[in-house]
C-alpha cells in the first residue's frame, strides 16, 4: 500500500465518529473467494450525514453490515480497521459487541417496514430492545417507548397495536424510533425509504434530519437514488465493484464529478427541468467480481480509458481539499471530466 494513501477524511481526529480504514470483506463461494469490498476507507464526522451510493452489488450494504459487525459466514471481514470513537470494533469480544450494538450504532435495514415482528405489539418490540440493553424496569421502558413514538409523530396510545395496523410510512417511522431508543451515536440507514412514495419519503427524511440536529448523531446513508442523496447528505462516497471511486462534498457529485463512473451515474438520472435530450447512462454491465481485471475496475465501461488504466491500479487519492478520486485522469493535476471528449465504448 502506498504511504501517501488518502483516508478520505476532512476532519480533525477529535471530531471523527467513525473511521473505516482499508476495509476488506470476502465472501466464500463454491467458485472461490470473492472480495466484495476492497480497501475501502472513509471517515464520518460527528453530526455528519455521509452517503454511500452505487449500483446493486457494489458493496455498499456490505460496508454498512461491517460497521455493525453483522456479517455471518460465508461473509467475513478479511482486513482493515473500523475505529469507532477511538476503539477498533473488529477487536471487540462478544460482550463488548453486545454493548456496542444499538447503544453506539443502530441500523435501519432495507425494507425496514417489514422488519417488525408481526405477532408482537409495538410495546413488546420496544421493551425487547430497552430491557436487553439497559437496566430500566418494564414501566420505565413503556414510558420511554411512548416518548419515542411522540418523537416520530405517532400517538403513544398506539403502543398496544400490531404492525399491520400501521401504514408503510408509519412502520418505517416506527423502525427509526426503535433505532433511536438508546440514543445511538451513529445510525446506519440502508435504503430507508426506497419502498415508499415520494411525499412520505420526504416527510421521513425531514424528520430524520430534524432528529439529527436535536440529538447530534451521525448518519451513514445508503441509497441508489443520487438526486435524493445530493439533497440529504453532507458528503458522498461513490462505490463501484467493491471500491470507493470517489468521495466528495454532496454538491460536487453532479456538478463536478471527479470520476468517470460518477459522471455516468449522474447522467443516468433524467432531469426534471431544462430541455429533453437523449441520455446514454453507462454502457455495459456491472463488473463480475470473479473476473476482476488488472488495473482499474471501471476500464471496460469507461469512455476515457487509456492504456495506463489497463495496466496500473489506481488508489483513492486526495486531488483537491476534501475531494478524493481513484482515477488516472488526475495524475497530472485535476481534470474537469465533464469537458473531456468521450470515446465510444464496446458493450
Amino acid at each position, binding site marked *: 500500500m502506498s504511504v501517501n494513501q488518502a483516508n478520505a477524511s476532512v476532519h480533525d481526529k477529535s471530531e471523527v465518529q467513525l473511521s473505516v480504514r482499508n476495509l476488506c470483506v470476502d465472501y466464500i463461494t463454491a467458485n472461490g473467494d470473492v472480495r466484495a469490498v476492497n480497501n475501502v476507507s472513509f471517515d464520518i464526522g460527528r453530526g455528519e450525514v455521509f452517503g454511500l451510493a452505487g449500483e446493486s452489488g457494489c458493496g455498499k450494504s456490505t460496508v454498512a453490515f461491517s460497521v455493525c459487525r453483522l456479517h455471518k459466514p460465508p461473509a467475513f471481514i478479511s482486513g482493515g480497521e473500523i475505529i469507532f470513537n477511538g476503539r477498533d470494533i473488529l477487536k471487540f469480544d462478544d460482550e463488548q459487541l453486545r454493548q456496542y450494538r444499538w447503544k453506539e450504532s443502530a441500523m435501519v435495514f432495507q425494507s425496514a417496514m417489514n422488519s417488525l415482528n408481526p405477532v408482537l405489539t409495538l410495546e413488546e418490540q420496544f421493551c425487547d430492545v430497552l430491557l436487553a440493553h439497559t437496566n430500566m424496569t418494564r414501566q420505565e421502558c413503556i414510558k420511554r417507548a411512548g416518548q419515542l413514538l411522540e418523537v416520530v409523530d405517532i400517538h403513544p396510545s398506539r403502543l398496544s397495536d400490531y404492525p399491520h395496523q400501521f*401504514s408503510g410510512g408509519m412502520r418505517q417511522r416506527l423502525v427509526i424510533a426503535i433505532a433511536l431508543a438508546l440514543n445511538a451515536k451513529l445510525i446506519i440507514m440502508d435504503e430507508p425509504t426506497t419502498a415508499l412514495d415520494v*411525499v412520505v419519503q420526504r416527510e421521513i427524511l425531514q424528520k430524520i434530519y430534524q432528529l439529527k440536529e436535536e440529538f447530534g448523531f451521525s448518519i451513514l446513508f445508503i441509497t441508489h437514488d443520487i438526486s435524493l442523496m445530493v439533497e440529504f447528505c453532507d458528503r458522498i462516497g461513490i462505490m463501484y465493484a467493491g471500491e470507493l471511486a470517489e468521495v466528495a462534498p454532496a454538491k460536487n457529485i453532479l456538478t463536478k464529478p471527479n470520476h468517470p463512473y460518477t459522471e455516468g451515474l449522474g447522467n443516468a438520472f433524467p432531469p*426534471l*427541468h431544462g430541455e429533453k435530450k437523449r441520455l446514454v447512462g453507462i454502457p455495459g454491465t456491472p463488473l463480475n467480481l470473479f473476473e476482476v481485471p488488472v488495473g482499474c475496475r471501471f476500464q471496460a465501461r469507461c469512455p476515457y480509458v487509456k492504456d495506463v488504466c489497463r495496466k496500473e491500479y489506481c488508489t483513492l487519492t486526495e486531488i483537491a481539499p476534501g475531494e478524493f478520486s481513484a482515477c488516472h485522469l488526475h495524475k497530472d493535476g485535476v481534470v474537469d471530466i465533464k469537458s473531456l471528449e468521450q470515446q465510444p465504448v464496446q458493450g
Partner: protein
Amino acid sequence: MSNNNPIIEVKNLVKDFPINANALKKSHMRALNDVSFNLYKGRALAIVGESGSGKSTSAKIIAKMYSRTAGTVKYHGRDIDEFNQKQSLMEYRESVQMIFQDPFGSLNPTHTIFHHLARPLLLHKKVSSKAELPERIYALLERVGLTPAKETAEKFPHQLSGGQRQRVNIARNLAVEAEIILADEPTSMLDVSIRLGVLNLMEDMKNDGISMMYITHDIATARYLAEDIGVMYVGHLVEWGEVDEVLQKPAHPYTQLLMSAVPDPEKSIHDNLEGGRKGEIPLWTPESVGCPFSGRCLQAMDKCNQALPEPKEIAPNHFVRCFLHE
C-alpha cells in the same frame, strides 16, 4: 394533443373491488372513479401516482385482465367488450401487450429465451413454418440489443441480468407486432445504469409508431419518455395534459405536493412541501363524496367535501379536476 384519432379511448372508467366480503355484508372499495384518457399512435402517456392510486388497475382493464364496473374503453372506436370470441380476442391481445414490473418473475425459468420468443410467434401465427423461427427470433433479439443473438437465444432466464430479461419481455411484445404497450413500472426493479438503456429502447419503439402507456412513480423518467402525463390520486385522475406543461405549472394541489417532494439535486431537503399536508390516504368507496384530496389540501373549501369537481381545461391540453380553477 395530436389530431389523430385515439387508438384507445377510455371514458368515465369506474372499477370497484369487493373488500371485507362476508355472507351478511358486502362492501366495496372504488379503485378507479370517472377516469378518462386517450392513447395515441407514436405517443406515450405516463401515469404517475402513489402505490394504490389505481395506476395498474387502469392498465389491466385495458388489457382485459380485469372487467370494469362502469364506463367505456374503445379500441379504434369499437368497445373492447366486442372482442370476446376466440378469434377477435386473440387479435385484441395481439395488439395490446403488457410489460410487467418484475423481470425475474415474468419469464419461465425452465425454458430458453428461444422458447419464450417462439411461443408468441407460433400462437399468433407470425411465421408460416417452424423453419422461419430462428431467423425471426435472432432479428428480434438484435432489435432489442441482445447480441450476439444466437448465444442469447440458447440461454435460460437465470443466465441473464434484470435489464436483459426486461429486454426479452420487450422482444416478446415486438414479436406479435403490438400496437399498444402497457408498461407497468418496467424499470423500477432495474439498476440505475441499466434503466436508461431500457427506457431508450422503449423510446425507439414509441418513435416507430407504437402507442405506449407508461406507469411509474418516478416523475423524472416519466418526463424523459412521455409526451403526456396523468397524475392519479386515490383512483381519480386529478390532473393531466402535456408533460412539461403539467410538471412546470402544476395546477392541482396534489400535483404541487408531488412536485415539491420529488428528489431534485437543485433543491434542499429542508424545503417545505407545498400544496398539502401529511395525512392518511382515504379509502374510497362507492358512497364517498367530494374531492379525494380535500382532507390533506391546504386550500380546501366547503364544496370540496360535497362534490367531485368536473375536469376543466385551463390551458391547451392541460386539464385539472379542482374547484380552485372553476
